[in-house]
Every structure is written in structure tokens, then in C-alpha cells.
């Protein structure tokens, strides 16, 4: 029907679409269907979080207070800013700005995304140093008498072993748990979820950074115009989705115990 006049086609128009508008609608629909699967993907982790937090509210509040709030807050600002620069990349592409303008906004987005990941790296490193990674070396109390003294505990590993052991036994028997040794097992569940959720989120950020580099290459080659810029728009949708995930992760993981003192 519409396959007759090939010479009039925009080079970016695929043959099975009537026009660029229809093509654009179809790509946006496809991207949102993919994002629907992503919502369910992260949704499973959020569900696990809600179930375990409703089971062990005190342990979760205590554990949450060991996260680095300034870094989390700073990263929230960085990510929101990167969503803005991504939106500006989309705008530049849609109004048909020259490749240089699109590239500038994309590079800014890439830099902000990388900043987020670098800060996240330092946060993870801190968790390893504080023995807050779930598993054999998990040790909630020995490395925490307030922030400063954590490092000075390095030498006393023998006492850690015993302290850790008693805490495990105490949490296993549940009833006999008292004072500082209470709920160590439950606290590990929080950190397990922390690493799973922020890890999956960071993995999405890394993929997003790769997509941005791909867009920068295309923009430098002058592939985008006011008529054709779907790759920029769709990566934009993905980037904003990852931002939304963090908008929920930040209060749920970092801030939940801030009004809880014990």
C-alpha cells in the first residue's frame, strides 16, 4: 500500500511503518513494555524488602542507621541532576540542534552517572571495612562504637571472634537474645537486601553509561535530527526509570531509621 514511493522515505524510516510518527509511537510503546518488565524485576526485590522489614522493623531501623546518609543524599542529588541533563539531551535532539550540543549534554549525563558509581564504590568499600557484608565475616557490633573508633578495632580480632560467636548463638536461640547481641541475623537480611537492590541498580547504571557512550558516538557522526532521534529518547526513558528506582531506594534504605534511637 504505502511501499510505493521509496525515494520519498526518510532514511531512518523502516519500511513496515507508514511514517515517522507511527514509527516513533511504536518505539515508545515497545520501550514502555520493556520498562514494565523492569518494574516487575525491581518489584520483586521491593516486595522482599517490605516482607522482611515488616517482620523485623527494629533490626532494619538499626541496620539502616549504619548506612552513609551524606553519600546517599549526595548521590540522590547527582542522579536527579543527571536526569535533567538527560532530558536536555533529548530536547537538543528533538529540536534538531547540532551534534555538538547533544554531545555536550550526553557527556554531562555520563559524568554525573559515573560520579554516582564512584561514590557507590566508596560506600561498598566502607561496608566491607565495617564488616557489614553478609556472610562469615559479618560483624555488626565490634566495628561500631560510633564512626571514629571503627578503625581502631583492627588489632582485636580475637575478641571479635568470640563476640561474633555469642551473637550468632544468641540470635539463633532468639529468646535468650539480650542487649547488644540481639537480632544480628535479622540485620544481615537488611544488608543482603541493601547489596541486592543497590547492586542491581548500579548494574543498570553501568548499562546506562554504556548506552550513553553509544549515543555520543552516534551524535558525533551526526545521525540525529529533528525527524529522527529515537535512540536518544528511548535511552532517556531508561535513564529516568533508573532514577525513579533510586528515588524509592534512598528513603527506604538510608532514611528509615533516622528517627529511631537506641
Amino acid at each position, binding site marked *: 500500500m504505502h511501499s510505493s514511493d521509496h525515494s520519498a522515505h526518510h532514511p531512518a524510516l523502516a519500511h513496515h511503518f*507508514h*511514517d515517522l*510518527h*507511527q514509527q*516513533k*509511537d511504536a518505539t*515508545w*510503546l515497545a520501550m*514502555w*513494555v520493556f*520498562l*514494565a518488565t523492569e*518494574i*516487575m524485576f525491581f*518489584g*520483586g526485590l*521491593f*516486595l522482599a524488602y*517490605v*516482607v522482611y*522489614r*515488616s*517482620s523485623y*522493623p527494629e533490626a532494619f531501623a538499626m541496620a539502616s542507621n549504619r548506612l552513609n*546518609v551524606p553519600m546517599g*543524599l549526595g548521590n*540522590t*542529588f547527582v542522579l*536527579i*541532576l543527571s*536526569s*535533567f541533563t*538527560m*532530558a*536536555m539531551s533529548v*530536547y537538543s535532539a*528533538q*529540536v534538531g540542534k547540532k551534534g555538538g550540543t547533544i554531545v555536550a549534554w550526553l557527556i554531562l549525563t555520563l559524568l554525573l552517572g559515573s560520579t554516582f558509581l564512584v561514590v557507590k564504590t566508596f560506600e561498598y568499600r566502607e561496608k566491607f571495612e565495617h564488616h557489614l557484608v553478609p556472610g562469615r565475616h559479618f560483624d555488626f557490633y565490634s566495628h561500631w562504637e560510633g564512626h571514629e573508633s571503627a578503625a581502631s578495632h583492627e588489632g582485636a580480632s580475637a575478641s571479635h571472634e568470640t563476640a561474633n560467636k555469642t551473637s550468632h548463638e544468641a540470635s539463633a536461640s532468639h529468646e535468650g537474645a539480650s542487649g547488644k547481641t540481639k537480632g544480628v541475623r535479622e540485620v544481615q537480611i537488611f544488608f543482603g537486601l541493601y547489596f541486592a537492590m543497590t547492586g542491581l541498580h548500579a548494574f543498570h547504571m553501568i548499562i546506562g553509561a554504556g548506552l550513553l557512550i553509544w549515543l555520543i558516538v552516534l551524535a558525533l557522526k551526526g545521525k540525529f535530527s529533528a525527524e529522527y532521534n529515537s535512540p536518544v529518547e528511548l535511552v*532517556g*526513558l531508561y535513564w*529516568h*526509570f533508573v*532514577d*525513579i528506582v533510586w*528515588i*524509592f531506594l*534512598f*528513603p*527506604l534504605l538510608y*532514611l*528509615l531509621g*533516622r*528517627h*529511631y534511637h537506641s
Partner: protein
Amino acid sequence: MSEQHSEHHIVSPKVYGTILVALLICTVLTYYVAGIDLGIFNNFVALGIAVFKATLVILFFMHMYYSTRLLWIVVAGSFFWLALMLLITLGDYVTRSWDIQHRIFF
């Protein structure tokens, strides 16, 4: 079929800037409110602000405000499935276990 194609609206930098400022203010707000003990309402406020921020991002950064009805159905549908998963599972957990008291509102 052309009546089904929306004119693709280009969102202006002014709108993007306004949303950016709103998101930054909400982030500061959620940080300060978390430090005040409101009992169970801490959760409602924190989640309320997060949902509001997510809505702003979806409507304007992700252009939903200007999108076709078909896209609205897909987005609403995806959140509907998420709600189904959360509500049915939580309904089970809240009503089943006798040894652990689940406190959904903490």
C-alpha cells in the same frame, strides 16, 4: 489511521528546569522529615514524597503528560501488576504467620 498519531510534543527546558528544582526540594524535604519522629506516619510521608517525585519524573521527564492513551494504558497496567504482586503476597504474609507479628506500618 493518522488521527491515532499524536503530534510529538517537545517539552521545553523551562519545564525540565522547574521539575528539577521540585525534585531537589522534595529530596531535601524527605531527608529532614525522616529525622522527625512521626510514628507510623514517617512511612506515609517518605513513600508519599517518593511517589510524588516518581510521578513528576514519569509525567514530564518521560513525557507521559503529552503521550498517547495507549501508552497511558501500558504504564497504568504495569503499575497495576506491581500492585497485584505486592498486595496478594502481603495479604498472605500478614494473615498467615503466627510466630512473627508482621507490622506493615512498622
